[in-house]
């Protein structure tokens, strides 16, 4: 039993934190949000230089062979700094799909470029009416003479606008919601027939609704076996969920720390408002939520790499239930305890509020995971 980060993990976490504290201040981030792309190529290049993009990938592709726990401190720092660059989409989801389902040729084509910061990925999965059911897929791929032709629509593809390639789940057989007959394809974002409607999300990420109209792809665009992609999707989404839990922990930490600081400095009736017991107890409960969330993120990141599928599902769902609850609790309390100031665009807590709100229902909300958790017995 050991809950400490290793020296290497700690060093990396520190360098990420230092970089973010210096070059990713709230003001700097504001400028990034207002830019056309909504993220910074320069920051992305720095991530590549720091080795963050290669962290979980094998050394033969230029990576460092890290596991989910190695990514945890990075994700926490990203959460704390409200980083809007497409780290989870590219490294946690896209790259993971390639690692777990890709052919040797696909890995060689994708991973070194990704690690160098020259290639970004996004996962196009969600469809109208699907909610969080990963098997609910209507988009279709039909076999053609030399590949496949893809038609369908995907919604809220996070970081879709900046992605070079999309990993798209489609149906190659059977009907909507059937566990069988699902396949994954790697499709260039600018391929003919791919059209994007881009927008900002409430937490200031960029996303797109994407239509695929007669998009032709070669056979080697298929990731994994045709028709058998669901277990791979579930596994990779669980992996990304565990990482998202770690990101949430960082954001919760910020909201909690900032609120504590505010309670100590904001004065009313001639005293710091933190001297009021009504607020003290609420602050303590935020701290407890943070500790419990941290415990569940640890559990999820440790188990997501090592457990069998049933145990992995059970633990990741348990973590997401707790994290979703903690996201809501801490974000709401942080705004309440900041009073009117907490509602303003000027204060970072209002941004953290929005990020935590969306994290709570990314990859399944608490209700979804309660259902899945119960089904694991």
């Amino acid at each position, binding site marked *: 039993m*050991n809950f400490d980060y290793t020296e290497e993990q700690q060093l990396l976490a520190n360098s990420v934190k230092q970089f973010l504290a210096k070059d990713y201040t709230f003001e700097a981030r504001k400028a990034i949000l207002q830019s056309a792309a909504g993220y910074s190529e320069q920051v992305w290049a720095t991530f590549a230089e720091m080795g963050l993009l290669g962290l979980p990938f094998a050394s033969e592709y230029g990576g460092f062979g890290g596991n989910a726990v190695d990514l945890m401190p990075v994700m926490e720092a990203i959460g704390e700094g409200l980083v809007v660059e497409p780290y989870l989409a590219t490294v946690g989801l896209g790259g993971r799909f390639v690692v777990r389902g890709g052919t040797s040729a696909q890995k060689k084509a994708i991973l070194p470029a990704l690690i160098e910061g020259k290639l970004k990925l996004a996962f196009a999965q969600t469809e109208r009416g699907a909610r969080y059911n990963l098997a609910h897929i209507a988009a279709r791929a039909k076999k053609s003479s030399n590949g496949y032709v893809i038609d369908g629509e995907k919604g809220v593809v996070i970081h879709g606008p900046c992605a070079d390639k999309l990993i798209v789940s489609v149906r190659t057989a059977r009907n909507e919601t059937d566990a069988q007959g699902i396949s994954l394809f790697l499709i260039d974002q600018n391929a003919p027939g791919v059209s994007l409607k881009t927008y900002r999300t409430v937490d200031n990420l960029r996303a797109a609704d994407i239509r695929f109209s007669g998009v032709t792809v070669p056979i080697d665009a298929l990731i994994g076996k045709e028709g058998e992609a669901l277990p791979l999707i579930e596994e990779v989404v669980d992996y990304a969920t565990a990482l998202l839990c770690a990101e949430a922990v960082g954001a919760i930490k910020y909201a909690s720390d900032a609120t504590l600081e505010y309670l100590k400095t904001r004065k009313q009736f001639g005293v710091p408002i933190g001297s009021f*017991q009504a607020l*003290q107890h609420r602050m*303590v409960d935020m701290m407890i939520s943070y500790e419990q969330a941290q415990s569940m993120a640890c559990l999820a990141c440790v188990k997501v790499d090592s457990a069998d599928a049933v145990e992995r599902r059970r633990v990741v769902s348990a973590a997401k*239930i707790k994290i979703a609850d903690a996201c809501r609790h801490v974000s709401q309390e942080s705004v309440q305890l900041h009073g009117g100031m907490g509602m303003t665009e000027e204060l970072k807590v209002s941004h953290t509020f929005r990020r935590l709100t969306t994290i709570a229902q990314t990859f399944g909300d608490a209700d979804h995971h*309660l259902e899945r958790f119960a089904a694991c017995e």
Partner: protein
Amino acid sequence: MDLNYSPEELAFRDEVRNWLRTNLPDDLCEKVANYQELDRDDYIRWHKVLAKKGWVAPEWPVEWGGKDWTVVQRYIFEEECGFAGCPPLIPFGLKMCAPVLLQFGTAEQKHRFLPRIYNGDDFWCQGYSEPGSGSDLASLKTSAVRQGDDYIVNGQKIWTTMAQFADWIFCLVRTDANSGKKQQGISFLLMDMKTPGITVRPLVLMDGGNEVNEVFFDDVRVPAENLVHKEGDGWTVAKYLLGYERMNTGRIGVSKRELAHLKELAAQQMKDGKPLIEDPRFRDKLSRVEVELMALEITNLRFLDQLRGGRTPGAEVSLLKIKGTEIQQALTELMVQMAGPFAQPFKPIDAGDFDYFTAGLTPRYCNFRKTTIYAGSNEIQRNIIAKMSLGL
């Protein structure tokens, strides 16, 4: 990061588990699992079984019978005992009076009391709270006036758990009524419960049980040799106890057993032809408690890991008490909900079949309201975290 116990720790866990399997008497385990009231003999019998094995006070120094266990081993032992359904060890002698004697007692006091505490020869109770001094313990008024070689004690204690069984009581008493701060002038005094002038009056709680009492002191003559530590500096002793061994307040082993039991029962209980456990409304509540328990277990292990690494976790360990007791209460509540209308029967009047198990559920639920009140109410725990840990 590694959440698993080491091979040595796992071997230790198996040793404890196997030993409990053969040495925990079935009738005691039954009583615990079915929420029946344990009597004095039950507690003492289990105490003596553990004492014989040498496991009754592992946290004591080895010279007094302790085991040189790591904090993790101690945690494993407590959790295994809880999970197996052992009767709880009454903490007043083993975990409260003894640590005080070890830290503050004279050699004579140690020799006189510790072996008898270890062997379960004396049953101890704790005289802290008073009618006017609950959370504000330092405002206590029970007086002890020095008269020659004795103290004369007058006053009243309340919520004295198992005083009706006790041979001895340790008390916080006021030896100086004119000290400046209320924390000053308090002393830590040991009293034989057979001393003339001590009266125990039961306080029956809403579960019908007599767990707590009022204890009255009328001109009780206590030899001055029963004073522990310096006269007037009893608050130091009280504070020492508060900080002592708070790593197992989460009672995760017990809650795991209760949760497993609840699931089993909810799977048998039918609602509209389907097991209650498949009812989404019930199931969600159950799952949320289970998730809280998973989180608390990891949090507890994280604190243990810090402690083992030489970093004493701060007041935030109070969260183990807060969360642990919330979980315990939630489980008793769900047990009552599980039993539905059959949570109402309490005691049979006519002879005949009677389900003593479901009849124990609501009393248990009633009784467990105590957990968020005792040992520093959960609000006091939040005060402690706010002050000590958050600096508010």
